């Protein structure tokens, strides 16, 4: 009864959408040149502010316009408005930024703008900001901007209360790493927190840097075995083995012992990998080279020179993308 043909609409729809898009592009271009013109004329008023909003709606990555927007705020609103009015204005601006961040959580300029607004805002609710960034990191635990912003908020909170949040933040990174350890940002945050905690020793866990290091290496071993290809783990391992916070607090023999244990450990894993895949794991091999170099350097020996040279040759094979890097290293290493 309904012989209404509904299929094969795609072509028509496509054409209409193209037409629509063409119109959009046209009006966008007009708006863009208008705003840039006004910027050059240094027009700072409610009207130009509104136009910058419109343009940023369409293109939130246009950092020039964010800059212009800040110029308008400091040259117009911050001069015109009373403190109460300014608080209201800034809150509204925070709402606008939040809306944009929800859509574009990876655009640096929006985060940057938020930080600027908070720095200029006469009355910030930092706990609220922390809540926002926690929510964002729940949605996407690897968003680098989110982690960066989090550190900014934490430092503001610490300044305002005079209390360190390092331990809480350390636990937060553990929670995120447990969820997904393939997370550079979380491991990185850990490297920033560990020196603070080993200095302030808020709990027994941080009493001795050796005890902490051993515990951390055990934790990391889990991750290495779970996913030997995950580079964030290897990079963190290198940080643990080379960071001053450990090297300068451990006596030489203890440090050498740690290095030797890790060398054995990584070599074992590399053997397993080779057995299974028919080829060495390049992260294992790179780490082996690093540890051997560290051992030689610490002991002031050249015991591993040959082995390192051989490893670098093998690395050229299994990681041809960085061939030149390895060549450079082997040439310079033995100078």
């Amino acid at each position, binding site marked *: *009864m*309904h*012989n*209404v*043909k*509904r*299929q*094969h*609409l*795609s072509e*028509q*729809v496509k054409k*209409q959408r193209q037409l629509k898009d063409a119109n959009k592009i046209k009006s966008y271009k007009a708006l863009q040149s208008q705003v840039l013109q006004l910027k050059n004329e240094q027009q700072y008023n409610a009207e130009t502010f509104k136009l910058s909003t419109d343009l940023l709606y369409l293109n939130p990555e246009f950092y020039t316009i964010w800059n212009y927007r800040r110029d308008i705020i400091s040259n117009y609103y911050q001069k015109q408005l009373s403190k109460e009015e300014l608080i209201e204005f800034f809150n509204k601006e925070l709402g606008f930024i939040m809306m944009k*961040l*929800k859509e574009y*959580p*990876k655009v640096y300029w929006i985060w940057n703008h938020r930080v600027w607004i908070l720095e200029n805002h006469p009355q910030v609710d930092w706990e609220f900001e922390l809540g926002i960034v926690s*929510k*964002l990191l729940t*949605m*996407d635990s*690897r*968003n*680098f*901007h989110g982690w*960066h912003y989090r550190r900014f908020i934490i430092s503001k909170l610490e300044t305002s209360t005079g209390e360190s949040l390092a331990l809480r933040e350390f636990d937060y990174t553990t929670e995120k790493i*447990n*969820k*997904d*350890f*393939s997370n*550079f*940002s979380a*491991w*990185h945050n850990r*490297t920033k927190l560990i020196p603070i905690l080993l200095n302030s020793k808020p709990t027994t866990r941080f009493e001795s840097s050796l005890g902490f290091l051993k515990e951390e290496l055990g934790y990391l*071993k*889990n*991750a290495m*075995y*779970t*996913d*030997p290809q995950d580079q964030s783990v290897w*990079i963190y391992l*290198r*940080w643990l083995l*080379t960071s001053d916070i450990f090297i300068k607090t451990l006596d030489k023999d203890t440090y050498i012992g740690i290095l030797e244990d890790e060398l054995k450990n990584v070599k074992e*894993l590399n053997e*397993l990998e080779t057995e*299974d895949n028919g080829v060495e794991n390049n992260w294992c091999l*790179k780490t082996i*080279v*690093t540890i051997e170099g560290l051992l030689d350097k610490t002991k002031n020996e050249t015991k591993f020179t040959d082995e390192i040279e051989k490893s670098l040759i093998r*690395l050229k094979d299994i990681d041809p993308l*960085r061939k030149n*890097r*390895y060549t450079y*290293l082997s040439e310079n290493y033995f100078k």
Partner: protein
Amino acid sequence: MSTERRPSIAERRSSTTTNTRPQFDSHLSTTNETIYNDGGNQQHGQGQGQFSTSRRPSVVPHLAGLEKPLPESIPEQCDVVIAGTGLVESILAAALAWQGSNVLHIDSNDHYGDNTATLTIDQIKNWVVKVNKNEIIGFKNALLYIPSGNELFKSKDFGLDLTPKILFAKSDLLSLLIKSRVYKYLEFLPLSSFHFFENDNFEKMSNTKQDIFTNQSLSLLTKRSLMKFIKFAIDWENQPQIWESYKKKPMEIFLNEQFKLEKPQIWELIFSIGLCNNLKINTPEALLRIKRYLISFDVYGNFPVMYSKYGGAGEISQGFCRSAAVAGTTYKLNTKLESFDPKNKIAKFSDNSRIRVNEQIILSPSQAPNNAQNIPKQEYEIQRLTVIVKKTCKEWFENGESASIVVFPSGSLSTNNSEAVQALIMSEETGITAPDTCVWYLSTTEKGLKGRHDLENALKKMENSILRESSDLNNEDELFDNGTGILNSVKLGQSFKDFVPKEKIQYLLKLYYIQKTSIPHADVVKPSIYKKNLDNNNNTSTENKDAPDNGVIYSTLPSSEISYDGIITAAKILYEKIVGSDDDFFDVDFEDDDENDENNGINNKNNDELAFDDDISETVEFADDMEL
């Protein structure tokens, strides 16, 4: 009535694709015949849409039909008759309707869903009687036990699925639900608890990177092997060098030899993640099944599986029927096909009405006319035991969830079962059962009496487990006052071998039956099996003289599969048989709804891939001179 031959669907299809021949003349003349009686058609104008470009190509729902009285009798002719409103048939009806075919969709029952229906208690009672009178093809040996004393509950408080199913978050049915907008008629709930039963314990699985990384009981080597396998399984098709030599060998061997995995992990992978029926499953089939689980994680959240609220396949088939109706399909329940005459293409129905079928008549075996001669053989069996217990069973659910899966692998039961028993547990929040009660759907592919014993044994284990877990600690105190010292172990995963339940579980209903199908158990996720089935079943159809079902195409009865895998494939193969190709199966471009301007909270799933690149900028600072 015009006797002019209407172009077949296949012909119309090609004409619209190439858009050259004005084939529509005859088509339109048919439309204008009084039997169509659809003035509203012109109003929306898409019938002529081929030639007009000015019209907004929107999809207009079926409001037009309400403007004019609809005739109280069925039309004189249609393109396709579909008998049976099971899930496959309902999807087919909707696909054909949106393609532009006139469909008459009937069902001999007074409700939707046919062999995949969701039934109230009263409907179950009637159904059992019919099954035992051999009036329902596809089911047999039904046993129903409803103790008295539960008069407080209403029949309508319950909706039991004849073929309970779960939906993988990454699956063809889910894509179709979204594309067709049928999901808007439904509500979906998440399911992430997969337990499996071993050594009299219920184990919780470690199947995500998070679980594996944080699980203290796994050795480093096991962690590595498991992760390695999981990474492989996600892209196994592209790595034949790893599995090709195991093509005809059981998965168990493959996992052991290629990934050095041991029994607990192998069983978990095969039975829980893969939801396989036994250990005989071949490597590629098992890999297919494991992959669907793995890729379904994190598509909509931290769970691989969903299910529709208020009932599974029965509810989803209603959704597709509504979609078909919106596209113009005529619905008539309580109507059975009496006969079909393939020569003049007239179908007769139980209410003495008749219709000319221009194209095909699709018949579910469960809707076959009396004395049908060509019904395909249903040689495989699934045994089902469905119970409603007076328990919330919340101990079995993840936080915030309302359903879980328990698998009893081969050999885990006292009956030394060779086929697995799978159980789907659904609480009141799933909308299928009364407050403070829970439905347990158990099934096995084991044959005969043994299968029934397996089901009963599994039920017993579940009974003991839930009694133990839901009893409070004070009672435990008395029970274990014999020095065994497991006071604090009242947790899932602890042995309850010695547990003596002091209360008995109360049942509101116990239902046992055998379901039959022509689809082999293990092959269900392979598309080819449906095609083979259709070909086998339908080439004999004209040989029986004067059979009332000559010239019809039989659809397949539901398989043993606990997921919806295979459903779309089955519908597409029938569609292809009618239309000539499945290229335009649901090729409909619906207008976007206004959901976009609603704030759905922070949603950056689509940006996930970028995370890595961004982080690298920080790595420089962090890695510093560490980078080789």
